[in-house]
């Protein structure tokens, strides 16, 4: 059982990195970005191609390259699809729906390309990229990869929270999440802010993807799908835009899923995130839907 907990912590760390990126784009751009899972997958493909064509690169370089590649991909998506669509939408509902569908379309492109690139087979990052070690801690096996995943999640979460709390960009992001016209007050254009949010979001997805690929030993074109919906459950539990909440609920969900899977079986575990989404949305809509306060009109 304690072995299961170690696995839950590693899983929670991946959930954390994945969800933080998604909650940024929802909170700041008001887009339900269904391509986030595809960008996560693209991160693993960047890493894979790099290790194929430039064997022997240190892991840190591969990780950073995948991070940059995913960030650029997310920025490209924002610049080519989301921003023009928002600019031509008649109202909020129209913009939300059309960016959501655009994100699905972009995901379809990315997943198809990754699928062709990998011949629709799982692909593995080379063992030499990161030598595995196992440690015995109080009778539980812990691998260096699990520790790396945990440390990466903690460090990146803390950096992101500090960035959003302390930096000018972060303050502008919070201002925009609260009031969509407020970015200008902090002296940063909404345009810059949206691109920055998407870059951060994509970078986090890329890092999460590479770490998961290293952790599991392999990746495939559709690996992002299941994470996407779990991340939505986490964001809804935490409240859209709440970074600290996303971190907490990422670990909580991983833990509960692990326990449920252990005691009740895989079917129940797989349904858990979706049931949580519906139940939480129904029971606590006032807290979650606070931005829809048209009574203030």
């Amino acid at each position, binding site marked *: 059982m304690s072995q299961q907990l170690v696995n839950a912590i590693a899983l929670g760390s991946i959930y954390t990195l994945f969800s933080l990126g998604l909650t940024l784009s929802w909170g700041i751009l008001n887009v339900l970005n269904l391509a986030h899972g595809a960008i996560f997958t693209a991160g693993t493909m960047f890493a894979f191609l790099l290790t194929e064509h430039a064997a022997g690169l240190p892991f840190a370089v591969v990780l950073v390259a995948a991070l940059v590649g995913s960030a650029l991909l997310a920025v490209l998506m924002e610049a080519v699809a989301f921003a023009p669509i928002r600019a031509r939408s*008649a109202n909020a509902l129209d913009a939300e729906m059309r960016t959501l569908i655009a994100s699905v379309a972009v995901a379809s492109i990315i997943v198809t390309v990754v699928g062709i690139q990998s011949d629709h087979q799982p692909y593995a990052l080379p063992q030499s990229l990161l030598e595995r070690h196992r440690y015995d801690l109080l009778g539980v096996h812990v691998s260096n990869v699990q520790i790396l995943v945990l440390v990466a999640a903690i460090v990146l979460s803390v950096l992101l929270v500090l960035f959003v709390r302390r930096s000018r960009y972060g303050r502008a992001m919070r201002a925009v999440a609260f009031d969509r016209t407020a970015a200008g007050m902090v002296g940063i254009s909404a345009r810059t802010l949206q691109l920055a949010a998407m870059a951060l979001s994509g970078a986090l997805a890329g890092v999460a993807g590479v770490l998961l690929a290293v952790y599991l030993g392999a990746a495939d074109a559709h690996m992002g799908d299941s994470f996407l919906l779990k991340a939505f459950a986490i964001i809804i539990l935490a409240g859209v835009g709440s970074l600290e909440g996303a971190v907490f609920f990422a670990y909580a969900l991983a833990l509960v899923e692990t326990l449920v899977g252990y005691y009740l079986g895989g079917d129940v575990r797989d349904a858990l995130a979706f049931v949580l989404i519906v139940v939480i949305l129904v029971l606590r809509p006032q807290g979650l839907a606070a931005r829809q306060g048209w*009574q*203030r*009109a």
Partner: protein
Amino acid sequence: MTAVLELRDIKVRFGGVKAVDGVSLALEPGHLHALVGPNGSGKTTVVNTMSRLVTPTDGQVFLGGQDVTAAGPHEVYRRGLARTFQGIRLVEGLTVRENVLLGVQELPTARSRAGRRRAAEAADEALERMDVHHVAQVAPAALPYGVQRRVEIARAVAGAPKILLLDEPVAGMSAGERQEISAVLGRLRDDGMTMLLIEHDLRFVLGLSDHLFVLNFGQLLAAGDPAATAALPAVQEAFLGRKHVPA
């Protein structure tokens, strides 16, 4: 004589903020009432409470003597309470006439075939009454601001409401447009329409209204004859005096 609309000790809190703090007032038939107050005094919240877009924390709303505190906004509309909003709220994609039809088509009287025909006639009459019938087939966005406002008022009066609430109808308008709307409201008053005009500019309502309510910090500061009420030192101070720090 029963009041058309009455508020009894209305309190509205948003989170910890008291937007309206114990307002009671009655609107008498055939009068043009004005509700004035500095920005942030709670005027719009009062209107939203009357039209049931905001549910009061405490207190009651009566429409035609009936308690409508628990009714929805669509119900009070169907019972004869019409309103306009501070910003222009015309529906894009519909013509001027179609926008005015929106003002009659949801009324209980418009359910039958004959009712629908009478409703359409009422809409056309309202278009003429507000002198916008010549732009009936035009997209409203193409029209000047003052004309758009008259279309909105046409939509509000087309269903022959018992009371019309106007939330700052001249906000952001030029002097000419203010004159135009002022004339429209004067005509409606002369026709016997019961109205409540919300405005932050005391001077605009003085020649127009026949009953004045002054709101400040969510409470009624004074009420009565417009000229006399406006001359009260407390009212003068609220509008012209030094800035208050809201509690």
